């Protein structure tokens, strides 16, 4: 095992900053080793039980929202016991994290990039936008962000201030941006600006619609899937999902083969 380089780490990251509202929480930890190897679309798994408690048992997966200067940030919605526990943590406490995990987004060598996020699926888009910008500073980077209501977009307001990123929003109730679905924004944008690479993370039906739209338009499309996970490292085989071709290849495993997949691998 000479020359062996670790790509995954387990560490107790000191919380540098935590800001939680009733619905969302943003935590930044010190995790230089992870930041060095992380790629956009990858995720971390966080222990969410009290020390020595086994309830809840599983770690919780969260997309890497941003890495900068050895600091890693996640943003999550408070939906259940695990996220509630995490939201109670305080600055200087240690977060038990493993990562970076899984296969992230592949930055396409194209002139136009559509980052399509729905709800908490917006979380990985900051890191992704930054990476695309670094690799293709001349390219057009467009974030299309959908949510149920304007409030859901608050956690991601800072995306508006990234100079290289053009942001458009849609909400189901019309409280921010386009009154309707985020796929409408994509259709409009593609019609107006032309095709590009699509990177998508959000609810299943939204991703499927976008995947089929891209297939129709012959645009490359990557989607980031969610499932319940136990290990996050490809060992338990618990995170299986049916791909487009279940019988041939068997099931796909989100934590190892994904979470990001070529859309065509999932939906035909």
């Amino acid at each position, binding site marked *: 095992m000479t020359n062996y380089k670790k*790509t995954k780490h387990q560490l107790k990251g000191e919380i540098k900053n935590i800001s939680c509202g009733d619905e969302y929480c943003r935590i930044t930890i010190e995790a230089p080793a992870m930041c060095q190897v992380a790629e956009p679309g990858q995720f971390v798994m966080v222990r969410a039980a009290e020390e020595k408690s086994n*309830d809840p048992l*599983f770690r919780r997966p969260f997309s890497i929202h941003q890495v900068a200067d050895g600091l890693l940030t996640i943003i999550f919605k408070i939906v259940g016991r695990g996220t509630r526990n995490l939201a109670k943590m305080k600055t200087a406490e240690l977060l038990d994290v493993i990562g970076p995990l899984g296969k992230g987004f592949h930055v396409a060598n194209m002139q136009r990039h559509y980052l399509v996020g729905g709800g908490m699926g917006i979380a990985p888009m900051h890191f992704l936008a930054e990476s695309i910008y670094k690799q293709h500073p001349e390219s057009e980077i467009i974030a299309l962000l959908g949510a149920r209501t304007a409030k859901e977009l608050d956690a991601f307001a800072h995306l508006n201030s990234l100079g290289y990123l053009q942001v458009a929003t849609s909400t189901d109730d019309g409280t921010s941006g386009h009154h309707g679905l985020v796929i409408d924004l994509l259709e409009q944008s593609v019609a107006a600006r032309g095709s590009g690479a699509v990177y998508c993370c959000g609810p299943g039906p939204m991703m499927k619609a976008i995947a089929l739209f891209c297939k129709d338009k012959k645009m490359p499309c990557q989607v980031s899937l969610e499932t319940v996970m136990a290990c996050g490292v490809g*060992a338990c085989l*618990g995170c*299986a999902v049916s791909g487009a071709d279940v019988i041939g290849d068997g099931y796909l495993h989100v934590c190892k083969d994904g979470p990001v997949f070529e859309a065509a691998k999932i939906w035909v």
Partner: protein
Amino acid sequence: MGIGRPDLTVAIGDWQLANPIMTASGTFGYGAEFADFVNLNRLGAIVVKGVSVKPRIGNPPPRIVETACGMLNAIGLENPGIEKFLTDKIPQLKKYTCGIVVNILGDSLEEYCTLAERLNETDITAIEVNISCPNVKKGGVAFGTDAKMVYDVTRCVRERSDKPIIMKLSPNVTDIAAMAAAAEEGGANAVSLINTLLGMAIDIRARRPKLANKVGGLSGPAIKPIALRMVWQVAQRVKIPVIGIGGISTVEDVVEFLLAGATAIQIGTANLVNPKAAEELIDGLENYLLENKIASVKELINGLIT
């Protein structure tokens, strides 16, 4: 005994283990998945994910559910099949210096025999036989729930292989010690227990089982008291070594199982929650022995005072 390092070695028949900590089948992949977290060579043994004659794609999702201090799984024994296992996995596994135990499973007596025979040609350390699977020829009754079938599987595997044979017992029985005795009689070198307890969870909104397979196996800290009781009962009944499994996640748990009569133990679900668990428990066990001035881990085995 001075200030030397305590002796962690244990023996299962002729097989000498560096320490009693193994990783349980299905929770540690093929080892490589944990190479970033654990120095694999330090493990007593790696028990790989169960392998069958033919490849299996496993059960449809959802396959896992979190429960109170535990989890249900219905992976459906997804694995590449013995041939692909031999060509793809064995070369990789050979690189590790720790013990390599291959967990096998079948639908029929013949399948178990075939697997034992194929593995006998390799230089793996031992074979662990998962008998929690349904016997399709006997109407789907699990092999491990009938003493006669346990005996038959043990015998056939025994006859086809010179490797140490570990029979892995199912806890879903009235009298697990009787199953252990049948395995011993059939020529097993050791028994390991417990496999998962059959359980269920329901999605009340959909009014459907949470697992696509309807039922699944319960594992994790929740089941530890049951596993410990069974290990104790079995250790009193058989003379062959007992390998304790079930909910082990702390050094105290390890010591409890050794005291109850286990010669070695396996870490299962704990690996999923804490990928460094197995190595941390080796260190923890060593420290425990040091702090308590115990020269050899063997002093703990069967040390329960009743």
